[in-house]
């Protein structure tokens, strides 16, 4: 059952998943979203592809967080939320009320702006996901923990203190721990909401490198305020403004030759 698999440097993808880059994992069709009376997203149409890093940029309050939280339906934690339209995850409409969110969230992991480890040991933080999904075997858990921590490039830093409280780690380490926690349930997609905005430059760099690494195995959607970051790490970039997608294209194109005047204004720092 346990087969030694890919180390950090292999480029082979996870076994068991079809790899045909360019295939859409998320197709958003005419998505509208309201918080109570206020509309936060308007007519979003966006296809997100497998094994790519998609960056979402835009000024504060434009709906970036709202959008990616819709992709794993975390947005529903706000009781007043209403949506219309469709989001297809590998062909199934996740907004349909019969769709099981817990299932979705097992496949679509999320990393938050502020590192939010549980107040447990490092080991328990990672093992939490597998455990709730029914994996109880200690040996398997041990391996998952190691693999996930390695995958998040933090294994060497924590391997001697796996049973210490996660709050003893630095902010940057905590964030990579949260990424590792996400990897432990082997999601298909990873959503990241400004994952480096609470981190210092060196930690930021590490997380960015990690994202580059992870993209081989996962589809990644990352919200960022930092234009340079988007340019550095993403394959595609979507520019949001006032709850709408103004432009969505190859990152290179967005930053060198934006089609829309507003995109240009934003990336050249004229507002936002």
């Amino acid at each position, binding site marked *: 059952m346990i087969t030694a698999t890919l180390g950090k440097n292999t480029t082979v993808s*996870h*076994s068991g998943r079809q790899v045909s880059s360019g295939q859409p994992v998320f197709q958003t069709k005419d998505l509208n979203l309201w918080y109570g009376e206020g509309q936060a997203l308007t007519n979003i149409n966006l296809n997100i592809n497998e094994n790519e890093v998609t960056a979402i940029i835009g000024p504060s309050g434009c709906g970036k967080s709202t959008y990616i939280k819709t992709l794993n339906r975390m947005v529903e934690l706000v009781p007043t939320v209403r949506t219309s339209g469709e989001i297809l995850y590998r062909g199934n409409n996740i907004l349909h009320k019969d769709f099981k969110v817990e299932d979705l969230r097992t496949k679509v992991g999320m990393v938050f702006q502020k590192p939010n480890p549980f107040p447990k040991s490092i080991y328990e933080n990672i093992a939490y996901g597998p455990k*709730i999904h029914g994996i109880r075997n200690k040996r398997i858990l041990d391996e998952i923990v190691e693999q996930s921590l390695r995958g998040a490039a933090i294994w060497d830093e924590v391997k001697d203190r796996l049973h210490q409280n996660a709050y003893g780690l630095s902010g940057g380490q905590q964030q990579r721990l949260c990424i590792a926690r996400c990897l*432990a349930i082997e999601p298909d997609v990873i959503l990241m909401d400004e994952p480096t905005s609470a981190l210092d430059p060196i930690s930021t760099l590490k997380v960015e490198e990690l994202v580059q690494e992870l993209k081989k195995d996962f589809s990644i959607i990352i919200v960022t305020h930092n234009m340079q970051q988007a340019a550095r790490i993403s394959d595609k970039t979507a520019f949001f403004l006032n709850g709408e997608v103004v432009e969505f294209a190859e990152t290179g194109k967005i930053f060198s030759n934006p089609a829309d005047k507003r995109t240009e204004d934003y990336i050249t720092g004229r507002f936002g």
Partner: protein
Amino acid sequence: MKYVDQAQVTKKMGTRLFANNLAKMLFLLSTLFGIAVLAVLIYRVASDSMGWINKDFLLNKLSTVPERAGILGAIYGTLWLMAVVAPATMILGVGTAIYLEEYAKKGKLQSFIQTNISNLAGVPSVVFGILGLTVFVRALDLGSVVLAGGLTMSLLVLPVVVVASQEAIRAVPQFLREASYGMGATKWQTIKNVVLPASLPGILTGVILALSRAIGETAPLVVIGIPALLIPLPNGILDKFTVLPVQIYYWTVDSALVAEYANLAAATIVILLIVLFAMNSIAIIIRNKFQKRF
């Protein structure tokens, strides 16, 4: 290689969601349990008291004959008790709160007094009864009169008033104090003219809650000694007295002898609960009305 078998996860999801829904029902039922008990309790008391609450019951003195028995004496006793507890807790509670918040230097002494107060809040009420019996009834030789009961009760509810007053005083913004000092006011003038008026609603809320606690307490008064039969109305703080909860106690105990005493106890409970609900509503109204004025 995959450790997490998605198919397996999906298969188990149903059970997990079922467990969640089941748990939710259980949690809801738990919450409703307390409420159901409250409903049963009120229903029982109300139906037992049916027909027993009328003008005579409120205005008659105590009697051994159920049909003639009234709670005027207990009402008088409760009022007189409050006449001692209200000013005593007001002075002691607010004074202590002012000292701790405005005068005491943050340090060992202050935190000692603070810890002491929170421990006092946890001392069982019978122990206060013993203190009252030993100090007020016996050593000061007051006898089991209103004053002795009132002082005992004041010490018992003191922590409630202190903590509420401290919170109220702490909520007075520093800039109001600065404004007063800036006019050349002394510390006491500032406290008296600015801090206390601004924190008064919070203090009053605390005092009312403390009084409603005192009105319902039975054990300390039973311990300091209240006669089983006392008919005349108390006319001052040096008179013997009985109060509503003690009356309930005796009638409940004696209900085995005279069945109607259970009805009298229930009727007295209804009156007591009405008084308490009214007091708590007033406290809530004061709190809501004067909240957030700065």
